[in-house]
């Protein structure tokens, strides 16, 4: 073996090829099957997509680095299930490009945040967390309330995601900017199409407390309120298992 190596280390190209082979095997064995083995991602018919407003909110969540302090992945451990809710399933992030599972919980997990608090709580909390939780170390996000939401390019966003496999229809893509406005301004005409395209369960309301314009706060709160609500699969799974035996 050492004799062979003695020869190998005289050949630069040979050495590089050996490195590539050694460093490829593990990745191929572990990753390729994730795309092919059925059951890696559960098959769930009621899984829905993000509306344009929620997607915009998600992009702001990414932009501000909320994922650096918040996970969105409840592990299958009993204390986590007790604290946050049913453990996360793969299907729940099926349409997440990229996933936001996170690796650090400076703040609590947000995977099942939807409907936990009122919109108003979120707006006050994001504006200054210490107004509602005095000890909080979360940053303030006052500018979300001040910044109007940019919606003109939303069609482009949906179109790219559709190319990557998220089931957005052509109609959803074409109407994305007006759907984004409509979802946060229920009194306007644009609101009509949102429920039609995304389902009656969609939250259509003024999220940031200000009906006269659509801000980044509207988008972020709309996104936070949908977390864990894209499908009921996790709750169904929990009901099917013996309660408490989550690991």
């Amino acid at each position, binding site marked *: 073996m050492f004799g062979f*190596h*003695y020869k190998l*280390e005289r050949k*630069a*190209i040979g*050495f*590089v090829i050996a*490195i590539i082979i*050694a*460093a*490829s095997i*593990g*990745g191929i*064995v*572990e990753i390729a099957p*994730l*795309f092919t083995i059925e059951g*890696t*991602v559960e098959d769930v018919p009621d899984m829905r997509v993000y509306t344009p407003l929620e997607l915009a909110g998600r992009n702001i969540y*990414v932009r*501000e*680095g909320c*994922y*650096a*302090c918040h996970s969105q992945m409840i*592990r*299958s*451990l009993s*204390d986590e299930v*007790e604290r946050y809710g049913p*453990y*996360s399933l*793969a299907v*729940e*992030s099926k*349409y*997440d*490009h*990229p*996933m936001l*599972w996170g*690796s*650090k*919980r*400076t703040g*609590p997990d947000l995977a099942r945040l939807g409907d936990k608090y009122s919109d108003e709580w979120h707006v006050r909390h994001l504006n200054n*967390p210490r107004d509602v939780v005095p*000890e*909080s*170390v*979360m*940053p*303030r996000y006052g500018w979300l309330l001040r910044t109007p939401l940019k919606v003109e*390019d939303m069609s*482009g*966003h949906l179109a*790219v995601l559709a190319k*990557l*496999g*998220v089931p957005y229809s052509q109609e959803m893509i074409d109407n994305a900017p007006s759907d984004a406005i409509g979802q946060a301004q229920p009194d306007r005409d644009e609101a009509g199409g949102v429920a039609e395209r995304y389902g009656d369960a969609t939250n259509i309301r003024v999220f940031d407390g200000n009906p006269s314009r659509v801000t980044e706060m509207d988008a972020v709160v709309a996104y936070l309120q949908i977390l864990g609500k894209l499908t009921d699969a996790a709750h169904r799974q929990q009901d099917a298992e013996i309660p408490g035996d989550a690991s």
Partner: protein
Amino acid sequence: MVLNLTRSERQGAMIVAVLLSLVGLVMTLFGADGYFSTHGFIIMLAGMGTVFLVGRGYDAPEPSDERLAHYYDDPVKAGVILAMFWAVFAMFVGDWVAWLLAYPDMTFDAAWASFGRLRPVHTTGVIFGFGGNALIATSFYVMQRTCRARLPDQLSPWFVILGYNLFCILSVSGYFMGITQSKEYAEAEWYADIWLVVVWVVYFLLYLRTLQRRNEPHIYVANWYYLAFIVVVAMLHIVNNLALPVSWFGAKSYTIYSGVQDAMIQWWYGHNAVAFFLTSGFLGMMYYFLPKRANRPIFSYRLSIISFWGITFSYIWVGSHHLHYTALPHWVQTLGVTFSIILLVPSWASAGNALLTLNGAWDKVRDDATLRFMMVAAVFYGLTTFEGSFMAIRPVNSLSHYTDWTVAHVHAGTLGWVSMISYGAFYAMVPWIWKQKKMFSPRLVEVHFWLSVAGTFIYVFAMWNSGIIQGLMWRTYNDVGTLSYSFIDSMVAMHPYYIARAFGGFLFLLGACVGLYNIWKTMKVRTPAMVSDPSRPLPVAGVAAGSVEAGE
């Protein structure tokens, strides 16, 4: 630097710089959003700055052939200085971020200064800015010496080092503005990623071309590690960053992977960034500078073969230990644990090889802070890898994951190992390349050493404590069978540890400032050139040997 380039190299530099300016101009003018245009503008400035610089020396006489009798160290010098600047900048941001977790309002009501944006500035600044420049600079130095060959040309090393720093600037300025893919350690957007690929290919070819010119039959161990670093980082970077931009003139893109596959690919990347960036590359550094400084041969050549291939083969499997108990299929998690434990063998073989090399030179370790930096680095490498293998075990990880324990592990590795080995290598190399007998102030090296050691210990112990407390509080049940502590309770309990950590980090940052000052002063000393580089001379026929450094 331009004066040492030949005519055709100056032409080449000019062409590259003009092209870069044009690309920048087009991006600025046609950018679909302000972000993209801003980055275009930065690229244009970089290009035009280079045009100006090269233009100024363009007509100067060509350098004499005498230069070919020396190793080409100008880009090494630039890399060392850049690395130290990045270290100070990014550790300053790191410490700021640390204070923010204790006093969250230590910021302005400005988006760019919020925790979520500063944190990737810190991680990218230290890993890629400081670590990357240190690796590129030392690799240029080491490959020439161990091959006894000069770099094949003088343009491509400059392209690599400056192009790489342009990538770092694009990434970091992007995070301040909120341009990010959110993939940890790969946050830079698609166009910056493409640029890095270009730079990296040139780097790889430069390495191969130097190896092909070598006057030594064997490729020395250090080069195996640098090669693995270059090749595998390219693989990881390309696969993990595949994305589709919303517009070819806009910053935002969507990764082509989603959900569980994205998570696995992200951590396949993430942990191997640790492996091939923060480990392999720095092991290469260690395998050259530690024996050189101690003036002893590496303890065991066979051990280095085993550990090299062990590390290269096993690391790739372990990414899934970041995803225990998640929605990732169980079989992948099991493979991750298994290889994480196997990995301890080659890791400790490397650390042991380094420490045993010092056997018989302990008096030097005692007297020489530079060598002590490297010794402590090897110890921390051993410690971090042991801790890592331990944390990869599923029940342990159930406690440590998501907590500050991970942060403790990270900084034991990055402060104790990555930074210390870099400082050791720099303090050895700086006098050699600037032709000095020693550093400007050996006492300040000593000061830097103790600041670093103290800072690391305070940081790591604070985070071990807070991490374990956090993990335990989250899972403690009371007699009634409900959870004892709210999340807020655990957050409040962290406060004193966060202050301690920020203080430890401050000491470490102070050390980096001392290091920068000392290196700067060494560089500026104007005594007659000392013959101090202990490397063997270039075997160039027909050139007076007097100008070449003394042999070993």
